[in-house]
């Protein structure tokens, strides 16, 4: 056993040690039971008062979603204009220019939907004002939006029959005051005391040991990096994201960052079980997700630590694994570990460049984002998984010849239609998007855009195709990582991924919440011997099979053209 392996085992254990109790806490807190953070109530009441919100007002699923959409639209409009005007606003010590309209369109959607695709580069593309007042602000509120919607869905199944999903504003605000903000303070302090800058000083300049003049970008980064992970956002301060030595200075910060992006997604799954008083359901879902995660994780680690066969052929030693795009202080094992979790939970931050990972690692990264339901982003992961659950209930119902039921509510045509449409949405957006991109690349290579389509790709052949497929997949999954070699700051990618991101965010939130709202209104059927039990291991395996079959059928052809073909083209 080597120290790199111990490092990720420690990260894994720490993630469970924090994530599991956090799930219980969240269930109690959102249910309004007594918890130790109740001392924050006066603060929350003050905010409700200033905002004119009555946190006890019940909402049905339509009112709930309207409130959610309304505030998200406000952020989209307000952010779009601020991004374009950043050069005229204060707190811009490095004199960064305003964004073009298409870049601002892409960027604001990207941050509102918790994707953080980042077609700009942090050091030269965003002022401190933008980084804090737009990006960091949206890091908090987009995560809180996802969590609030998931809790609304939980509430639908807590009571036998109800139209009340609870109050969107109350869930939203408490996600921030009781969860995201306190944890961010802790993580930001750990980061800043380990060398991540947190002051408002601008770029620095010095003469290096060899006599070169060097500029160094800095700024209040620790504050943003904390919430970028806790909120599964992933949009970093610096261009190189968490591979940057100021954004992630040492192995301790690496553990802190990878653990902090996992704890809320894990907690939300268990929170579901505790909140609806069906602890076992939460644990079965947790089990399915964890098996899925490990099935992606283990081959990724083995493929990265195996090294690049083409470089091995040159006679070079790769004692720890493939090193292109990786940092020495983390090593290939921790980078492979990070790349799996960041793609399954939709964070999309990176501590090494995904574009340079081995073909099969790229395959697992893509698949993690395509499935997008193994833990998944803050709140939205559970919502995505809920759709898989409904499909699994429906198929199981067909197999045994009964009307399908979920937690005592009949699942009928309307709910199944919504679930099926949401399931089809991802393959449609990813495939259609990639197909159009590939078409433009081959047939309109000289289009007069900021980056000519013929110059989009940083790598030829199969890997080039993977770059386009990855970008669309990441946008749809609201992940935000990239095969960053892609020249994506031009009108085609800014507009196309903008549209994919916004559809890939809001429809998979609206769909599950609507299904939950519709189910909760129905008469509750008491459990009997003939009831399909959804909290058993058997049903867990059934759901897992549904997830595998749906995704394999949807994506295998595209994956075969990209990473799989590249794998077979490498020397053995």
């Amino acid at each position, binding site marked *: 056993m080597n120290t790199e392996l111990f490092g990720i085992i420690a990260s894994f254990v720490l993630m469970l040690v924090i994530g599991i109790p956090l799930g219980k806490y969240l269930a109690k807190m959102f249910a309004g039971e007594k918890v130790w953070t109740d001392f924050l109530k006066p603060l929350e009441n003050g905010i409700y008062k200033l905002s004119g919100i009555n946190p006890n007002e019940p909402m049905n699923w339509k009112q709930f979603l309207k409130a959610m959409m*309304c505030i998200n639209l406000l952020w989209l409009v307000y952010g779009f204009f601020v991004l374009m005007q950043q050069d005229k606003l204060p707190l811009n010590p490095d004199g960064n220019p305003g964004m073009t309209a298409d870049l601002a369109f892409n960027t604001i959607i990207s941050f509102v939907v918790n994707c953080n695709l980042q077609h700009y580069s942090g050091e030269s593309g965003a002022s401190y004002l933008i980084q804090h007042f737009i990006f960091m602000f949206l890091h908090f509120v987009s995560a809180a939006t996802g969590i609030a919607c998931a809790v609304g869905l939980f509430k639908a199944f807590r009571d036998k029959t109800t139209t009340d999903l609870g109050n969107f504003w109350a869930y939203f605000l408490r996600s921030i005051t009781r969860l995201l903000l306190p944890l961010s303070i802790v993580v930001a302090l750990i980061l800043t005391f380990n060398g991540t800058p947190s002051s408002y000083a601008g770029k620095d300049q010095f003469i290096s040991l060899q006599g070169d003049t060097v500029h160094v970008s800095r700024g209040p980064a620790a504050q943003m990096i904390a919430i970028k992970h806790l909120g599964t956002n992933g949009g970093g301060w610096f261009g*190189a994201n968490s591979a940057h030595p100021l954004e992630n200075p040492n192995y301790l910060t690496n553990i802190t960052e990878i653990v902090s992006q996992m704890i809320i997604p894990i907690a939300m799954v268990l929170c579901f079980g505790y909140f609806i008083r069906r602890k076992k359901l939460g644990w079965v879902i947790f089990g399915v997700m964890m098996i899925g995660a490990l099935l992606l994780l283990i081959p990724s680690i083995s493929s990265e630590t195996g090294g690049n066969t083409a470089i091995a052929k040159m006679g070079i030693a790769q004692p720890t694994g493939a090193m292109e795009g990786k*940092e020495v202080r983390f*090593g290939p094992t921790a980078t492979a570990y990070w790349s799996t979790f960041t793609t399954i939970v939709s964070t999309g931050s990176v501590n090494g460049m995904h574009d340079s990972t081995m073909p099969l690692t790229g395959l697992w990264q893509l698949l993690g984002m395509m499935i997008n339901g193994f833990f998944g982003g803050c709140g939205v992961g559970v919502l995505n998984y809920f759709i898989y659950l409904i499909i699994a209930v429906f198929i199981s119902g067909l197999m045994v010849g009964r009307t399908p039921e979920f937690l005592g509510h009949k699942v009928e045509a309307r709910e199944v239609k919504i679930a099926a449409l949401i399931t089809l949405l991802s393959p449609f957006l990813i495939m259609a998007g990639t197909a159009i991109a590939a078409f433009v690349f081959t047939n309109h290579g000289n289009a007069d855009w900021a980056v000519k389509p013929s110059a989009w790709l940083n790598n030829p052949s199969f890997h080039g195709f993977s770059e386009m497929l990855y970008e669309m997949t990441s946008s749809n999954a609201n992940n935000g990582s990239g095969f960053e070699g892609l020249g994506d700051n031009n009108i085609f990618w800014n507009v196309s991924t903008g549209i994919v991101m916004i559809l890939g965010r809001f429809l998979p939130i609206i769909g599950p919440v609507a299904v939950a709202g519709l189910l909760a209104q129905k008469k509750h059927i008491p459990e009997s011997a003939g009831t399909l039990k959804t909290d058993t291991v058997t049903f867990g395996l059934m759901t897992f099979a549904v997830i595998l079959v749906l995704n394999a059928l949807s994506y295998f052809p595209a994956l075969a053209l990209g990473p799989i073909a590249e794998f077979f083209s490498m020397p053995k």
Partner: protein
Amino acid sequence: MKSNIIKSIRITLVLTVILCVIYPVAISLAGKLSKGRGDGETIVVNGKVVGYANIGQSFTQPKYFWGRPSAVAYNAAGSAGSNKGPSNPDYLKDVASRIDTLLKYHQYLKRSDIPAEMVTASGSGLDPDISPAAAQIQIKRIADNRGLTVAQVTDLVAKHTEAPLLGLLGPAKVNVLKLNVALDELKK
């Protein structure tokens, strides 16, 4: 709808004050107590800042330990990896030429002595570290160049090798800038 809009605007304003002013300023103030006062930790030689502890810099002269290849030439105003795919033929040519350069300056080396990180670009382009093995292969060159004994330089490398976290988590590493500063001081 109208009431939703008004609530949205008001809560956005209130949260902006908390999340974008109070929270970051408080962290920034706490950061003043950290080693680099929240500005990033610098390394000072004779009263002059010669670099940032965590930011790698370009070393090309034979008298210094070299760091890793960088896609941004260690210009820390930005940051990026090469984003070259593992099967890219142009990229593999670059790697081959880096190997040749290394072998030219270290004629005592076999190919299998060269650790991968010395011929591959880092993720940030600013990687401050190399592995102990990568420092080891350069010792003889440095000693010859500076008129030091191999034992002296080996000692220095050992002193600057940072163990894994708590002795057992993550890789061991050597900070190239700190090692080179110590090397310059050794000469005096």
